[in-house]
């Protein structure tokens, strides 16, 4: 069985439960979006999936084998993780940072592909122009794209992306998610934490909605991203519309309520 699956994950920080009995499956040929309000446990769930955090209860299986039984380097050839923070302590050029994504393949036949793979990752993320510049002086968006290129260069079946679009302009947001989509179409499995619900609706096959550390809903974007459910979970009136031409779901806040309040006050 390939892919990544978590069963009955419970995580508590101190006394506060951050995740309670959450189960998700990241399947091949699928983009899974993890959405939910701040503090719902999205990033924690991604940490558990990537093996950074041992859950208090529950188990994560990578290709059918518990994470604890994997060697780190072997795991690095099966799943790549894009974290939210992008920091590099020494002034490595962006190109070197991308090439670091190839390190799990060192000493294996795949190492011969290094140059081609890095080249492709740079092309896919539009990072050729910045490759020679030190990572530290890049803009937030350029850093995010470089880090994303590094995860692509890792050439793993599973991609775990924590808010890959946060620092990006609308064009690059689309590029990144299109890459994730393309990865899934080629048979890869992708899990992506997103704040922008319209992006989740447009690019994901399945959406997992977290609320207060629990699974609030799971299913296709059309099933999960409904106005009543979102309004409840986000504690704010939210509208879900269909784009007049394309039919894409557009998820926007309904600002009338708060405006009226202000007017009356």
């Amino acid at each position, binding site marked *: 069985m390939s892919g990544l699956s978590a069963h009955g994950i419970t995580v508590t920080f101190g006394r506060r439960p951050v995740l309670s009995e959450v189960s998700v499956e990241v399947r091949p040929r699928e983009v899974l979006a993890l959405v939910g309000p701040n503090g719902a446990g999205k990033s924690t769930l991604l940490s558990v999936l990537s093996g950074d955090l041992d859950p208090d209860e529950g188990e994560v299986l990578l290709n059918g084998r518990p994470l604890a039984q994997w060697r*780190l380097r072997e795991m690095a050839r099966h799943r790549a993780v894009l974290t939210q923070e992008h920091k590099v302590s020494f002034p490595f050029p962006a190109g070197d940072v991308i090439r670091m994504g190839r*390190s799990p393949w060192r000493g294996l036949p795949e190492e011969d592909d290094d140059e081609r793979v890095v080249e492709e990752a740079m092309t896919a993320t*539009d990072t050729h*122009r910045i490759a*020679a510049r030190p990572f530290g002086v890049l803009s937030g968006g350029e850093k995010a794209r470089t880090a994303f290129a590094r995860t692509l260069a890792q050439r793993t079946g599973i991609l775990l992306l924590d808010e890959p679009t946060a620092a990006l302009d609308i064009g690059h947001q689309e590029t990144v998610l299109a890459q994730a989509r393309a990865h899934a179409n080629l048979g890869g499995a992708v899990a992506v934490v997103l704040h922008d619900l319209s992006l989740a609706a447009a690019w994901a096959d399945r959406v997992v909605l977290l609320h207060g550390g629990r699974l609030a809903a799971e299913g296709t974007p059309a099933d999960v991203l409904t106005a009543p459910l979102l309004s409840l979970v986000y504690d704010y009136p939210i509208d879900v519309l269909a784009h007049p031409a394309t039919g894409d779901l557009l998820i926007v806040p309904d600002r009338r309520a708060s405006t009226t309040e202000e007017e009356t006050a």
Partner: protein
Amino acid sequence: MTTTFQPRLPAGRESDAETAGDDAAVRRRRRKITVLYTLLVIGLALMTVVASGAGQLKIPFDEVLGSIAHRIGLDIGPLPSHPRGEFTLWNVRFSRIAMAVIVGASLAVAGAVMQGIFGNPLAEPSVVGVSSGAAVAAGAAIVFSLNFAGDWTIAACAFLGGLGTTLLVYALSRSEGRTEVVTLVLTGIAVNAVAGALLAMLMFLGDTQARESIVFWQLGSLNGSRWPYVWVVAPLAVVGIAISLFCARQLDLLSLGERSARHLGVHVERLRILLIVVVALLTAAAVSFCGIVAFVGLVIPHLVRMVTGPGHVAVVTASALAGALVLICADTVARTAIPYTDLPLGMLTSLVGGPFFFWLLRRTRRTAGGWA
């Protein structure tokens, strides 16, 4: 009015000129690194000959080379003409140069590795107090006349002292997976203060001879580097530098941050502990017989990085070579600047290294708004 939409997807190939920018940069850096290695090796060979000839008893170049040639069985060149020339070369000068090479290489590599583990350009054995920790333990060995491991006793004590201090600094200055520069430097001040007090206490407790040895420790000097001492520290240095080189690529990954390094297959905690032991080993190699030689581990890796870029394989290799070269030069100055006097080596390196530290602080403040 309509504007035509230029599709961004699929992302097109960048122009060849742009692609070449990265390739060219990589090639340029490789060439720079090769040139640097070559220059350093030539410099080392040259300085070895110069340093062997210099001193109270001057021995000309050709006689130094001739003496070496004869030792390896080649009958070329003249032997030293001075009656004590041959003896001086082989029993005083060469052992001292070998010690300078070991101490310089060890300290520079220890600095480079420490900066890598802490992800912090200010980490250095003497700045964070590892050198003084090692010196306290070695001082205790002198004062209490410990001799549990023969010639190795002082080195063993220095290693344990260094290891203990490094672990202490590591535990005190890390929070949430990284070290703040300020915390690290403050921890260093505290550790140095405590170590200074302990050394003072040891001096108070010891007899005149022990006191003199400890003063020599704090000033640092290569005076009296005999071959037996060289054979004690050489294996420590070789093992330490070899492990550092072996882990250099993982140090590169570590600069991405702990989590990302782990995602790329690095056992971060295991790597850190291993390299902390290596730093203690290298510091012990340097400190055991020569005392505290400060700032080499700070200055050398920084200068090297300006040429090689931050990749640790090149930084560690070039630091070892450059550290050795700089220490041979510094020691030659120390013993020839004032006739019939052996200046303390640690004093010289601090005289040069201290101001460099200022410059580094100012430069970083200007370029990056200081260290957070």
